């Protein structure tokens, strides 16, 4: 997968940093090993802007039908996420049927997780003002108008260089991407802990 952003393409944008008291460097190291051992990894997250069942799964399946994959673009940031590093031991695609998370994969302190492979460091820019929210109640809102405040992740469609009909662009709309990955089936899942 190359790093070009083609109009119409699907991007799951997410800001990443310290999570559940673990530094980003440590997380990358651990996730890379998980992919080597299990063939994929689960990247934990929270918040309904990328809800597994109502957002990420239908978003990714739409691209799957087109023979395309969704790229996960991560923007490193300084953060202090103090959630308890409790390991999830089960995952579910639909919130009804639950399965054990493979021993090689550790999701800590999260309610949801993205299924990814091909995690690698990168240096590229994502012009958020050339994207639009692809699904949900904010569908059609320009990316730079959406990613602000507490909203730090989104299912986006690359809209190309043509202006998107919302408000005028503002400065600081280019996200500096430091990590990329490929979203793989089942794309996103609920996770829970039954033992802690």
């Amino acid at each position, binding site marked *: 997968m190359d790093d070009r952003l083609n109009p119409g393409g699907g991007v799951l944008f997410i800001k990443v940093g310290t999570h559940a008291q673990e530094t980003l460097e440590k997380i990358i190291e651990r996730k890379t090993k998980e992919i080597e051992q299990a063939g994929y990894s689960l990247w934990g997250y929270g918040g309904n802007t990328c809800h597994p069942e*109502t957002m990420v799964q239908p978003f990714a399946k739409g691209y799957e039908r087109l023979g395309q994959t969704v790229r996960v673009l991560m923007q490193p940031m300084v953060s202090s996420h103090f959630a308890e590093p409790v390991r999830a031991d089960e995952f579910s695609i639909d919130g009804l049927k639950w399965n054990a998370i493979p021993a090689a994969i550790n999701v800590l302190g999260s309610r949801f997780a993205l299924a990814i492979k091909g995690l690698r460091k990168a240096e590229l820019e994502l012009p958020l003002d050339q994207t639009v929210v692809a699904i949900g109640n904010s*569908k059609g809102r320009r990316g730079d108008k959406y990613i602000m405040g507490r909203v730090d992740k989104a299912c986006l469609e690359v809209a190309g260089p043509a202006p998107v009909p919302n408000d005028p662009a503002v400065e600081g709309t280019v996200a500096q991407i430091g990590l990329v990955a490929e979203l793989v089936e089942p794309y996103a899942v609920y996770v829970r802990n039954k033992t802690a």
Partner: protein
Amino acid sequence: MADAGSIDLRLAMNAISDVIVNRPRPIRKIDQIYMKAGDMVLQSELVARWADGKRLAFIGDGDAISVCIAYLKQRNIIGYGPSKICVFDFDERICRAVERFADKERLETLESRLYNCLDPFPSNGKFDLFYTNPPWGASNDGESVKVFAQRGMEATGYTGEGMLVIADDPELAWPQTVLSAVQRFGLDNGYFTQKMMSRLHTYHLDDAPELRSCNLVLRAVPGNGSRAGKSQAIDDSNRLTNFYGRENPPRVKYVREKKRLDYGNALEEEYDLELIGSTNG
């Protein structure tokens, strides 16, 4: 007793606070998204005034506006309100929360009924007005709104008025498409748009924090009651495929409440008590 425009805001806010504490936590995947407290106060006063002396059916009511208006009137914070309120909801937690609150506060005008809007409506024509804040139909051009509106029209025998609380954002295409589709649905069923109050309400909605909703009031044309017939189940896949969002059709018949003796208190699974002088740690 207060008239419109002269409400004691502190009393009203504290009453709404009582209602909020009684509400079950929302389930996001079935589109339970709660209105913010300040907007609930204003909305409750407005709905109580609109429905004064009338029989009002709520087609779903996670927000608990039904409870608010009954409670505000009972407490004499407002001097007007419906003569009867019935909440139809498929979430047993919501129905039981309504009943518990009504029992505790002696709200004799308020009741609830467990009902899934895909089933035939059980009380055709027994109400004067309906109110609904349905799934907003971002992925189905308002079809989910139409399903709830249809049940409201059946509740009122295709007469009277209905207040629909739906998305309203001039920056986005889909809310405008939905507003248009719902008004067309109203016209097709003998209703005209009597009033639209734009961008009134905000929500605990982290994936669209700026999104607001409006009150769209539909009124039946005179003689429209002749349309009323036997209510039918809704099973047309064209209406249901994207009901709760893209590729998310309804799968839940009812949300069932897990019965507890200590309702309203913190769940014991959430905490442990470490006693003074204990040797733990």
